[in-house]
């Protein structure tokens, strides 16, 4: 299909976007001399000549741009041009804005999905080879969501430009629902569960991801209870509701004969016990049952937190996966209680080395290459940039972690903190209930085929004319409009009884979930606004199209709510009502296509029974020649996992909302810290401390201590920044692999034992969690040899804590010369899995492993941490940094670089329980340690306040970093400038 108009907009001054692309290509070795970028709008509507010129003018900045209509770039010599546009059905945010501009200017009322389409053209000068052209386009577009056209100068001119073809969605699903025959043998049931419902053309729709036990329960339910065949809509809905994603089947499974399962035995049990032991000092509000978990902020407010993972979508489309991740977890806050206001974002990216250029493929024929680590890294970083910045939510807290096993599937963690008044309209804000008779209202974006069977996507399913189904792109502005209208207006006007977000499973999950409160629902599918016609009933019901909330609204308030949303530029529609019939009923154009017992839908899933195996073996410490410190310390500072990632911190707005206190980059030297602090209310000095801990490198060596270290780190980082331990809570995110294998379950079980023990010791409850249990990849290398890559079992523990007065918070930077440097805690030879051993392994070309992973002495640490809080309270500490990955050496150098001050420390003074070697003292990752600097005037008061083991190891100096051994010999000496180069060089071109 062709658009009536094509508006092209060109820069009239040097093109900054072109220049930055040119630089990016230069970095991968492709030299082009000039790139000009043009923005193109394909507009499919009738206009007069004056109107279309007016529109083009409105889209142009006349100071720096010019436009053309239905023409092409003349009088400019280039070698070739690439045009990138979207595939049919892919969210085109710019096109939506242009549609709004057209509607507002010309009062045209046309559905925005088919009026405007955008493309971008890159005109490149400087001859490059065909291979290089392919590499250029490979860097510019993602075939899963975009289309490209490449023309030479001659082709472009003879064709008269790129033309006006538009990617209109053209699908005609069979509107009828089908009935699925479940009169099948076990083999056929397995096939149905694994590959999905058989379509009339004999292809299967994609996995239901239901195992035989589940299929059999469904079979007997329909045979014995309903006495009929299920519809496809019913089967797809059950599959969504029972999915690993929604029901956490591994965490809920009976493990080694324990029917309580991992979640019940370790995570929930820890929180229950802590809350009970804390009695009236219990900080939890609504944990594990809502979209996020909340803790007490002050007498009037609750602070909520949620961390999600978006791994599979990010592997396919890193930008889309990460942006939908961040705006999706924002919605979890909007759907927490009666609607929390998102006040901060977190992120964490687990990636492979962006310099790794070895391709890997999904298929043996090398037809389906995975995106390179560099592309994945660039895309996931950019997704949180656009999603976070455009939503006006600060993103102060985050980390990156590199491991070669994150190459096939990156881990993308995204989190959001929310603020919710305890009382809304005279009622508790965390108690919400859809009442029988309330309308089911959906608001926000429209429904397309986005995200259907997302987890099981295969690229072959994509062809011309069919919308990209698994991949979604977020629309932060639509969501921002909706969020403001709900959280800042509708909530406090008492316009709804309950609210939840649409995430996995779309309406099928959100409506059924809310219907638990009332006892039933009825929905008429034809009322649901669609992006384009032609969707099958089951697709409408399970679609994961973004930016939607579902609300339960009393009939008399529905009109008011819909009018308010309309005034804010957001669509809201009544699609049905909540009932107390005990049934979920869905009709499409009057015909009933879904009628299930809600109790079966929610509770019918049979519990899995799993067995774990423990085969962790202890090994001896490795033997190696200790490299020279003058080199190893600089090398360590420049490692991927240690070095500055300020290029990420600086592209995320951490100042919006005016709440920032301790920032992601600290001190005059702008060094990445491991904790940040925000102050959510201008009128209160209370703050919120955010941090995290994670050691996937330890998981296979010692899963118990891996989890213990992660918790200790998350807690310690927060304490060092000022957190009140009594008001600290944790979130658990498990990203495991191959989670039905006994060995992986054994690791999981040990990790969870530590989760229980440590949380109970520290009194830090879990308030929310998420798991993603199958991060595995099977594919082929360049030589078509089969390979499999599983992520190292990864547990992210996030911490959130309240600090009563942000004035006690402390940053990592040394402040003044002559301040005394103390190392709190004890250093042991615990280097197994350490960053130093990874470094040695790479340097020596053999695996350096063995000895002990850091163990946590929680009893001692607890006393120490409380005394650190007391010292901060008394303002006796001038800087504090928690010792993490890379050990003492990295911590002391980061404090120095942050403060732009030197130091002299004596390793002989470092407290250690047995005599250990200098490199072990410097790089051991022993837990429970905090490095602080103290004003000499406060020496006595500080030492009296600290309750626990500590050593005075040196002083802050004006220049130079000096490390001495116990014989007072210089082991290491360097200027700060040189250390700064080591710390920042790794990503300086990013």
């Amino acid at each position: 299909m062709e658009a009536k108009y094509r508006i092209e907009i060109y820069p009239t001054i040097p093109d900054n976007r072109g220049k930055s692309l040119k630089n990016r290509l230069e970095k991968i070795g492709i030299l082009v001399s000039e790139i000009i970028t043009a923005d193109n709008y394909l507009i499919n509507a009738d206009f007069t000549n004056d109107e279309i010129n007016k529109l083009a003018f409105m889209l142009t900045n006349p100071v720096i741009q010019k436009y053309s209509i239905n023409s092409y770039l003349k009088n400019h010599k280039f070698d070739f041009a690439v045009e990138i546009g979207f595939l049919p059905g892919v969210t085109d945010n710019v096109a939506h804005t242009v549609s709004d501009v057209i509607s507002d200017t010309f009062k045209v009322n046309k559905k925005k999905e088919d009026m405007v389409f955008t493309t971008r053209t890159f005109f490149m000068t400087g001859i490059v080879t065909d291979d290089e052209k392919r590499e250029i386009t490979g860097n510019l577009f993602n075939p899963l969501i975009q289309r490209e056209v490449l023309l030479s100068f001659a082709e472009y001119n003879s064709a008269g430009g790129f033309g006006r073809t538009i990617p209109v969605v053209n699908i005609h699903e069979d509107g009828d629902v089908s009935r699925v025959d479940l009169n099948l043998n076990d083999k056929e049931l397995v096939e149905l569960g694994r590959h999905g419902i058989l379509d009339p053309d004999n292809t299967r729709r994609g996995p239901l991801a239901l195992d035989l036990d589940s299929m059999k329960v469904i079979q007997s339910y329909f045979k014995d209870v309903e006495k009929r065949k299920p519809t496809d809509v019913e089967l797809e809905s059950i599959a969504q509701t029972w999915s690993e994603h929604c029901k956490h089947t591994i965490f809920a499974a009976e493990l080694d004969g324990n029917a309580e399962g991992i979640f019940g035995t370790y995570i929930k049990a820890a929180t229950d016990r802590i809350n009970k032991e804390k009695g009236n000092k219990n900080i939890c509000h609504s944990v594990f049952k809502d979209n996020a978990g909340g803790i007490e902020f002050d007498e009037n407010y609750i602070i909520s937190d949620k961390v999600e993972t978006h791994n599979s979508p990010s592997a396919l489309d890193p930008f889309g996966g990460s942006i939908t991740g961040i705006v999706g977890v924002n919605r979890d806050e909007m759907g927490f209680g009666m609607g929390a206001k998102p006040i901060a974002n977190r992120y964490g990216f687990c990636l492979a080395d962006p310099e790794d250029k070895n391709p890997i493929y999904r298929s043996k024929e090398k037809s389906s290459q995975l995106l390179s680590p560099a592309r994945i890294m660039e895309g996931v970083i950019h997704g949180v940039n656009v999603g976070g910045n455009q939503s006006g939510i600060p993103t102060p807290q985050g980390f990156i972690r590199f491991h070669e096993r994150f190459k096939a599937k990156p881990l993308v963690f995204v989190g959001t903190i929310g603020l919710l008044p305890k009382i809304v309209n005279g009622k508790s804000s965390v108690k919400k209930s859809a009442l029988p008779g309330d309308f089911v209202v959906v608001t926000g974006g429209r429904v397309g085929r986005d995200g259907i069977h997302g987890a099981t996507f295969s690229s072959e399913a994509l062809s011309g004319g069919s919308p990209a189904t698994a991949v979604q792109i977020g629309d932060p502005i639509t969501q921002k409009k909706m969020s403001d209208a709900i959280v800042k207006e509708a909530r406090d006007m008492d316009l709804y009884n309950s609210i939840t977000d649409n995430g996995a499973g779309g309406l099928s999950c959100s409506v059924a979930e809310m219907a638990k409160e009332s006892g039933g629902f009825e929905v008429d599918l034809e009322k649901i606004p669609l992006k384009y016609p032609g969707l099958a009933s089951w697709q409408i019901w399970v679609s994961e199209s973004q930016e939607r909330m579902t609300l339960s609204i009393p009939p008399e308030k529905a009109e008011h709510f819909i009018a308010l949303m309309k005034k804010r530029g957001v669509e809201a529609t009544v699609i049905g009502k909540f009932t107390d019939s005990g049934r979920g009923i869905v009709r499409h154009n009057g015909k009933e296509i879904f009628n299930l017992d809600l109790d079966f839908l929610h509770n019918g899933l049979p519990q899995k029974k799993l067995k774990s195996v423990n085969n962790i073996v202890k090994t001896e410490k490795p033997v190696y020649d200790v490299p020279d410190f003058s080199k190893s310390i600089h090398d360590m500072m420049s490692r991927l996992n240690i070095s500055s990632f300020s290029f990420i911190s600086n592209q995320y707005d951490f100042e919006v909302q005016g709440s920032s206190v301790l920032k992601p980059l600290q001190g005059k030297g702008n060094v990445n810290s491991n904790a940040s602090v925000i102050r959510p209310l201008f009128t209160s000095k209370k703050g919120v401390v955010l941090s995290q801990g994670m050691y996937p490198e330890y998981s296979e060596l010692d899963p118990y201590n891996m989890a213990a270290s992660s918790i200790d780190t998350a807690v310690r980082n927060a304490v060092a920044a000022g957190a009140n331990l009594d008001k600290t809570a944790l979130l658990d995110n498990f990203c495991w692999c191959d989670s039905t294998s006994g060995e992986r379950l054994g690791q999981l079980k040990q990790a969870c034992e530590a989760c229980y023990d440590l949380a109970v010791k520290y009194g830090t409850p879990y308030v929310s969690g998420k798991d993603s249990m199958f991060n595995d990849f099977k594919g082929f290398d360049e030589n078509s040899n089969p390979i499999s890559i599983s992520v190292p079992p990864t547990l992210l523990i996030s911490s959130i804590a309240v600090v009563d007065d942000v004035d006690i918070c402390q940053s990592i930077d040394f402040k003044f010369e002559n301040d005394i440097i103390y190392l709190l805690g004890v250093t042991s030879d615990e280097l197994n899995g350490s960053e130093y051993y990874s470094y040695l392994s790479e340097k020596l070309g053999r695996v350096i492993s063995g000895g002990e992973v850091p163990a946590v002495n929680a009893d001692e640490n607890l006393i120490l941490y409380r005394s650190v809080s007391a010292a901060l309270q008394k303002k006796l500490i001038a800087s504090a940094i928690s010792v993490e990955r890379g050990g003492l050496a990295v911590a002391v150098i980061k404090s120095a670089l942050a403060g732009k001050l030197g130091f002299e420390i004596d390793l002989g003074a470092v407290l250690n329980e047995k005599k250990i070697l200098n490199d072990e003292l410097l790089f051991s990752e022993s837990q429970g340690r905090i490095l602080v600097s103290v004003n000499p005037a406060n020496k006595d008061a500080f030492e009296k306040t600290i309750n626990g083991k500590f050593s005075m190891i040196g002083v802050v100096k004006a220049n130079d970093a000096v490390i001495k051994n116990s014989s007072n010999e210089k082991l290491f000496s360097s200027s700060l400038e040189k250390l700064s180069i080591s710390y920042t060089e790794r990503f300086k071109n990013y």
Partner: protein
Amino acid sequence: MSKPGAIVLTGYGINCEEETAHVFAVAGADAKIWHLNDLIENKNVLKDNQIFIFPGGFSYGDDTGSGKALANKIINNLSDEFQNFMQRDVLVMGICNGFQVMTNLGIVPGNESFGHSQVALDYNFKNRYECRWVHLKLNNKIYFKDMDVIKVPVAHGEGNFYADEKTLLQLKDNDQISGIYCNEKGEPANGEFPLNPNGALQDIASISDKTGRFIGLMPHPERNFLFSQRDDYTYQKEKLQRSG
């Protein structure tokens, strides 16, 4: 004397309205947040107020150029009322995305008629969003009286100031350059990153109209009004403590 009334605009992706309204209230204004659509329905409100603020944010997601789509909506729906408002002895301020909207409306530098832009805020020279603290040398007798060099955060992807030579000369001749990126001593950044975070021509961070009443600036002064917001907060705290 009664407080001046301040309209703080919101809607369509503006996102700094709450802190901006708070700061104007602290400074003594009767500041109210108005959604653009409510303002279009109640145009007379403009007559009752003395200050209009375009806060920062991401109106329309910067689609079709930052500030462009919101400026179009104002031209389509509030053109006369806004021009009448500006005829009175009022103040108009635009911060970050609000500055971008003001340049698209032509309010700053305001040397041509309403709706005609004369300067542009192009993509940052790195084509990347930058959030960082910068030094700013100020020059405006109405907003920055007795102020010289301040530290404030910037956070934007399109702040690279551009104007042709004729316009630049006009800006200088009329004393319309109200803020430039500089070092801590107040010396111009001379285009050097990160002092000048976006590549702005002649380090221009802020301009006003000829009267100085209408001003736009890329940095966010509303994000530096509390001690605890400063990027050197813990350092200054420690210094204060030691000096007794």
